[in-house]
């Protein structure tokens, strides 16, 4: 492969998958680290362009996942993820009507109660555009095992949601406009 061909292939890879890889890394490491990690993921992709298989996105997620394991970043990552998850719950779309906002916040809050692994399993397909077999490849197991693990994670999400719904947090008083 000539360098020009490689550059074209790489640009296509980047244009097609950057948003997904970035989103996955925001989910797993928070916005503070996502940019750096996404850059590094694509750098690895460039250096190993010949190794990129047809299932490009799953492969890129696998690279990103390996980078996440870097222990040098684990403390920074914990803080960055905590900030990220907190921002999801407080994030509101102004066009949403009130009860949609509440339900949205409840689901997200339930999700943030779960472990990092459960959150990953639950969102690979729902948020990051992977097929179930790609998701299985990313987490490194067979499709059958992936479904078993997803099933367990879904039950834990359900339980967390029930808890959240039963004991909704007291909403913060809005400024100068108490009912």
């Amino acid at each position, binding site marked *: 492969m000539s360098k020009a061909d490689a550059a074209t292939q790489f640009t296509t890879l980047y244009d097609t998958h*950057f948003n997904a890889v970035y989103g996955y890394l925001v989910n797993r490491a928070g916005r503070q680290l996502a940019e*750096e990690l996404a850059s590094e993921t694509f*750098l690895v992709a460039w*250096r190993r*362009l010949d190794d990129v298989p047809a299932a490009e996105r799953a492969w890129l997620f696998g690279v990103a996942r390996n980078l996440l394991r870097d222990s040098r970043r684990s403390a920074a990552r914990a803080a960055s993820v905590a900030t990220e998850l907190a921002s999801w719950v407080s994030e509101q779309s102004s066009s949403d009507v009130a009860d949609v906002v509440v339900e949205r916040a409840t689901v997200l809050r339930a999700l943030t109660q779960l472990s990092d692994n459960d959150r990953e399993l639950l969102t690979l397909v*729902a*948020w990051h555009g992977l097929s179930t077999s790609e998701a299985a490849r990313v987490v490194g197991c067979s499709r059958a095992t992936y479904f078993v693990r997803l099933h367990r994670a879904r039950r834990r999400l359900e339980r967390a949601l029930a808890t959240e719904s039963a004991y909704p947090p007291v909403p913060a008083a809005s400024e100068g406009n108490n009912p």
Partner: protein
Amino acid sequence: MKPRSTAYAKLADVRPGTLEPPAELRRRVGGLIRSVARHLPLGAVAATGAAIATVAARHVLLTAAVAAERAGPGHGNYWYTRELHMSIDQVLEDSIVRQWSELKEITNSRLIPLDRNVRGEYLIESRFRDESWHEPTAGASTVWVTTKLGARPARPEDELAWRRAGSPRSWAVEGAELEDRDGNVLGTDAHLVHAEEPEPVVERTYPNRDDSIYWLAGHGVSLQDLAALPTDPMALKAEFLRRFTGEGSEGGPCGATYWIYDSARNLILEMPVPPGVRAATFRMLADLPEMRVIHDVVDPLGRAATAVAMRNPEITDGAYEDRLLIDAKTGVGLGTESYVLERSTDRPWAPPGLRLFWTAVEAAHWTDERPEPVPDSATNVPSG
């Protein structure tokens, strides 16, 4: 109660907006990655743990390249540089100093027989400032002004040793080894350094033999040669390698990568090259294997700097790390340092971690003014 599947099904509808990269971030990372990719050999396998450091290291040099590109070329009749230099020496024992003085009285020779393993007393650092005004045409001249700034104990422990020794104001330090015509070592040259130099300022004027008045990659080059250097990093690297003989710019064995690094360092710190060539030099450095970037350091003058560090792997007696200091935001070269990594038999007194030399570039620009050339070269050299 809702069926179990609902919560999972709802997830797709509550995907946080923060998972989408802002357009500006997408552009920024895209630019960074593409530019890094352009300068990375295809297929090179990165050590994964080091990859992010590599990205950051390259990024800082590519930033410097962009800044260097934006800088104006500058104008003037003379290329002016002002550099402050520091070096560390071992103070020789009193007996040697006496011996040296006696020899000098008798023979007016500086040569002393010196056992390399002789114990020195402590370390001192000497500083001097070099200013030069290059007029880049044949038939013109270059004016050099050297200001000797004296010496002082190098480290706190040296200061203690110096006080114990009665706080002398001058010291004998080891110079170069001298050989006879058959290569037999006759002894070692020694010289005296002073806390306050008696005649600190030396001005010299050198007439230009031709227009090749700059020294780059082991060769004299003219201003036109510098202006004609490639603005493509790969071509620039090839140009440096073309001049590579296996010997370093100051003698001794030298690896090819270190040669490129050394040439690039020289160019960035001292050479009047067009902005595009400076930018290419930073991009070339970003591509060098074995290059290490150290962020957030301080240069010898206290300026915030980024260090681009490299070892010359061909040096087998001891080991040193050279650091090129730059202001990455402006693409300006700030100086260079040399640290001891492993003790050598050549300088058994220099422990790992010691900063053995540094040069701080205080100015490097075109100017229209310079001191009057001294009619006869070496006029003002102190006698003795």
